[in-house]
């Protein structure tokens, strides 16, 4: 049976080497910008468009693209979309192969990284030719520019809000947090809800531990009147700041007054709030449509977030759902024309409503069918109501923001399971941030 022994050996060895390992080679960065000419009206052009989101957003994009193709009969737009995580995996792989879509939805978290490595085209030369940016607020437009080059155009804005489920607070006989409530009052409200909701089946909580969300930490830090990142792309907060923030909900965690992480992990991508087991959730205001759809109740109300020590919320408008052209696009003129259409066309505004946030361009805002009592109306009313307390400009995320945000989330999970202390959280996060943020 020696042959069998050999065969076994051969199989074993082959299997070891069959561990497929992949590697990719990279090529030189190509330049961007250059001259712009009015987009051709007779040449057949095919460009590609990619975004992250769900089926609902895809249907809206398809409608918008149909309108664009009607206005430009010689241009065909190929579309694709993925969920958030997969979207970035796909884009990164394409970036390595210089095969990014001509136009892609871009987020502030990744803008710097993509721009710094020469993946994005400069739209400056397209302004006034194929691209009209006159409807955009100057500071908003600025959020898509780095070192004087316009790499992306924001299509809408989001603001943080506290959502609460009025059905739940009514059932528990609770009042929502009062106007101008502070973080301490918010924590007390969590304790009260958890106490009142303990006898429910399943138990009802105030909400998830909000301290483990990176953007809320940044927002809280900005209530001290400072930006979280320096102009040269470094951290502007200290380890003590982060410890203070994370310790602020330690009492809630100890009292088990936050939605249990064991349950939350099993619900993903839903949350305790959308399964009606938590009364409130802090999030971006364009989430309302999703909350209403998932929780099955229309009675979800919005409030500003807790106020800082000076009694002010220090909110900011976060530019969202930016559109960016690829530097390797063969049709930069057509790409600019598509971006122009998506940010300016009133009908596109009607199609998307507030599902991507409140549109950045007034013509699209005005074109929305804002019916009384509709979700769009609530979101617009909220942004109107907080207009006076939006006092800060949006932070410009550092390069590597996507990675340090993900690390914050991961450590937050460990913290909630009690595997690490706040000090260990901060220590590990800092080590990770030093790796991911390029030194200036």
């Amino acid at each position: 049976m020696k042959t069998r022994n050999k065969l076994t050996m051969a199989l074993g060895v082959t299997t070891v080497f069959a561990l497929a390992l992949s590697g990719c080679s990279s090529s030189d960065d190509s330049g961007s910008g250059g001259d712009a000419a009015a987009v051709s009206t007779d040449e057949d052009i095919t460009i590609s468009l990619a975004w992250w989101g769900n089926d609902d957003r895809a249907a809206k994009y398809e409608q918008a693209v149909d309108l664009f193709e009607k206005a430009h009969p010689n241009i065909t737009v190929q579309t694709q979309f993925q969920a958030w995580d997969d979207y970035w995996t796909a884009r990164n792989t394409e970036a390595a192969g210089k095969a990014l879509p001509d136009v892609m939805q871009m987020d502030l978290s990744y803008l710097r990284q993509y721009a710094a490595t020469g993946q994005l085209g400069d739209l400056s030369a397209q302004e006034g030719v194929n691209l009209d940016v006159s409807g955009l607020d100057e500071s908003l437009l600025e959020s898509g520019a780095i070192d004087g080059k316009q790499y992306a155009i924001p299509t809408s804005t989001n603001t943080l809000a506290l959502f609460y489920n009025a059905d739940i607070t009514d059932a528990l006989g609770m009042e929502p947090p009062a106007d101008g409530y502070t973080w301490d009052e918010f924590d007390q409200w969590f304790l009260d809800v958890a106490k009142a909701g303990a006898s429910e089946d399943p138990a009802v909580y105030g909400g998830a531990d909000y301290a483990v969300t990176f953007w809320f930490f940044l927002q809280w830090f900005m209530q001290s009147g400072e930006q979280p990142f320096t102009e040269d792309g470094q951290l502007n907060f200290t380890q003590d700041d982060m410890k203070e923030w994370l310790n602020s909900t330690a009492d809630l965690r100890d009292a088990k007054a936050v939605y249990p992480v064991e349950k939350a992990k099993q619900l993903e991508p839903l949350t305790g709030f959308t399964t009606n087991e938590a009364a409130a959730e802090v999030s971006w205001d364009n989430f309302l449509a999703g909350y209403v759809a998932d929780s099955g109740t229309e009675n979800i109300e919005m409030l500003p977030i807790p106020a800082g020590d000076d009694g002010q919320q220090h909110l900011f408008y976060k530019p969202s759902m930016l559109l960016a052209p690829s530097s390797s696009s063969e049709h930069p003129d057509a790409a600019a024309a598509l971006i122009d259409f998506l940010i300016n066309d009133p009908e596109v505004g009607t199609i998307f409503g507030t599902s991507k946030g409140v549109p950045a361009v007034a013509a699209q805002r005005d074109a929305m069918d804002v019916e009384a009592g509709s979700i769009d109306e609530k979101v617009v009313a909220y942004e109107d109501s907080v207009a006076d307390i939006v006092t800060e400009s949006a932070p410009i995320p550092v390069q590597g923001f996507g990675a340090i945000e993900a690390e914050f989330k991961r450590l937050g999970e460990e913290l909630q399971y009690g595997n690490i202390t706040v000090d260990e959280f901060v220590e590990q996060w800092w080590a990770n941030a030093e790796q991911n943020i390029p030194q200036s």
Partner: protein
Amino acid sequence: MTTLTRDAAPSSAPAKRARRWKPSEVRAGYAFLTPWLLGFFLLTAGPMIASLYLAFTDYNLFTDPQWVGFDNFTQLFQDPRFLQSAKVTAIYVLVGTPVKLVAALAVAMLLNMKHRGQGAYRSIFYAPSLIGASVSIAIVWKAMFIDDGIVDTVGQFFGMQAGGWVGNPDMTMPMMILLAVWQFGAPMVIFLAGLKQVPAELYEAASVDGAGPVRKFLRITLPMLSPVIFFNLLLETIAAFQVFSSAFIISGGSGGPAGSTLFYTLYLYIRGFNDFRMGYASAMAWVLVIVVGVITAIFFKTSKSWVHYSGDAR
């Protein structure tokens, strides 16, 4: 690789000189091998060599790789998440593989009995292995083990108050091992084939000598089966080191909750495709190749003392 020329070594074929292959036959042979050779060099060997180079670089997909020497490897062993992933994978291999093989052997012995409809049973018991590695089964598995899922409900009936296993870091590993064990079909089929090769007269002779079923199992079945056990152990160990898709789906790609399903290959993927540290990920891949290679070598070394090939003079 071996060549197609068959030179007759005097020691192995003393009686008759083997003929040489004709050149046209050699060409035809290579022609038929071409698809495999192309696949091997383009899809396996090429990328492996590229990754060996990348393992010594800092490479973020966007900019050219920077040579950093052994930095990636020294960083690996100071990275708490790397150590966590090595620990999780080691537990999975050390516990999961033996349990799976014992289950496979037990079922194979049941299916080896003379019984009506054995063919149907064999097909049914093999079925989980056909679908077990699929995405949908991982999703079904997750649904079974969440709060108020079927496992939780049955557990509550018997007084267990563990809640859903998916959200409990202490219970995710048993859950992952159960999923692996449930896919015992492939080793089972090989065990079954091995059991059929054991000569019946050995059992008959043992019965005449008054041996009971336990003694027959220990003294006849296990030694006669040892080459098959060795083969299964090797393949299943290597496969267990590479577990990825089920953990990826059940944890949503995060290795959570709290790092309890952070398998080696999953962390490798996270480093490469979430953090864009391709050099680091390549270094991890090579550490895995070396570890699996060493373990395979140890298996072969020790096999001489416990694997029994009938025909060997011992």
